[in-house]
């Protein structure tokens, strides 16, 4: 993870359509953006993340601000892309087909894959109890590292509403986490 100073220089270069600036911004933000999209249930989070950055390149002339604002702006684009993708897929449902190559890859690291799946299943059960708004707020706060103001701007909500969603979401997560710990 690069520092904010380096990312500011990268942002200045990106505004002038310089490649290394965009490469630096992408390497810094792409994992969290992809994780946010994946946590929100996007079917192809990597492709969607690429579309997010391509859209950012096209609209970089409209952006004004520093790296913090740029991070918030990127997640705002990601959220909008996610909404568009969900609408698109609701109109054109696609039946997934099992990839034969994935079984071969998974077979090499079976134990690690099993543990990841267990952790992922436990987290999925926790976040399944959240409402979509609570999920968006908590994912942007936890995965994206955005502040309450940035989350409010990204979701087009006021700060009070974001705080309320955050509080209720955390209470629901704790409740589910405690229940799972007792059951385990």
């Amino acid at each position: 993870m690069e520092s904010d100073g380096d990312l500011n220089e990268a942002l200045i270069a990106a505004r002038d359509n310089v490649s290394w600036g965009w490469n630096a911004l992408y390497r810094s933000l792409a994992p969290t953006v992809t994780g946010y999209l994946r946590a929100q249930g996007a079917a192809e989070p990597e492709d969607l993340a690429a579309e997010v950055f391509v859209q950012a390149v096209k609209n970089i002339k409209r952006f004004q601000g520093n790296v913090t604002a740029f991070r918030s702006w990127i997640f705002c684009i990601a959220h909008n892309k996610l909404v568009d993708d969900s609408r698109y897929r609701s109109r054109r449902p696609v039946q997934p087909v099992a990839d034969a190559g994935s079984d071969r890859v998974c077979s090499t690291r079976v134990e690690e894959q099993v543990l990841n799946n267990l952790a992922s299943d436990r987290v999925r059960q926790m976040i399944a109890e959240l409402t979509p708004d609570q999920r968006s707020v908590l994912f942007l706060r936890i995965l994206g590292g955005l502040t309450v103001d940035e989350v409010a701007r990204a979701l087009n909500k006021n700060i009070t509403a974001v705080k309320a969603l955050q509080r209720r979401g955390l209470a629901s997560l704790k409740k589910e986490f405690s229940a799972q710990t007792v059951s385990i």
Partner: protein
Amino acid sequence: MDNYRGNDPEVDGIFDGESEDAWADPNVIRRITEDLREAYVLPLDDATQAKHLAAIADAISQNASRPRVLPLAQRPSTDGSRCASTFVRAAGSARVAREVSTASLASPFGARAAGTASTPGPRPRTPLAAVGSPPEPKTAHVSWIRPGAFVSSIYSKAAVIAAAIAVSASGLAIAGSLPDPVQTAFSEAAGAIGLDIPAPIQPPAVSPAPPREQAVAPPLLPEPLPVIPQEPLPVPIVPPPAPVAEAPRVQAPPPAAQFAPPAAPAEDLQAWLTELIRQALATANARAMNPQSQPEAGAAQSGQTGGQSWASENPWQSYGTNGAQTKAGTGSGSGYPSSSPQAKPQSRPAAGSSYDD
């Protein structure tokens, strides 16, 4: 967590794993945060990153090759594009203004629009449509309308208004409340397709009104009365000089109808007066030629009869002598007009003689 009343920095600290208290069990939230990050935030493999960076590089190259649209004030105006785009923009089409500013049409059109005072450009001899690139066939573009586009378009509003007018007009036509010409048109149109819409009630037939000139202009002058041919008045027969002892002949009065005043006031009255004066002059001449033929008594009688005849000839004068006749009943009046100075002294013995009878 349920009893949590902490502020946002405390929550931020919990998310970051730095907060140790301010929550019932911050470790729980920390573990949840770590689980979420471990579950979803994964490093991208090199192939995916290379693919994404290639897509970003393509977007950067397209972004760089895209012509940068300068503000209107910063555009060069050597070929008149600024004037052309300003002219078209003032006409209300920004899209055409952009096309004009970039297309080859800008040169001749802009030069004409600019009207450069120093060296006006030559007038293009080719039509403007042939200056630019040939237009693409319309079939190349497939217009696709969004499902909600028609609802929000002006055509939908016009269609709704037209439908509302049609429905209301049909209702009024069925009720027979439209104006008569419109109701007649609706009735005929509906009758052609087999619908029964009442026609307006026709008023009873009235004779056509006379033309305006005849109705407005009544005749100012009465119609000329039929001209009654007037026979020439007979010249009063002057009795020949008779002996004194003979009784004077009574002059026959002319027929009353002949001396009746004409009904028409203008020409007939003038002719009647002229004839009356001429007759009076003739009578006066006859009296002047035979002064002895009028004895005193005869003169009285003739004066009386003359007065009566004159009065009968002149009804106005007889009207004026009514008072004299009334006085005559008292013994002082006579039938002569009071305006005649000569008749008055002659009438007194005649009146007396008449009363003696």
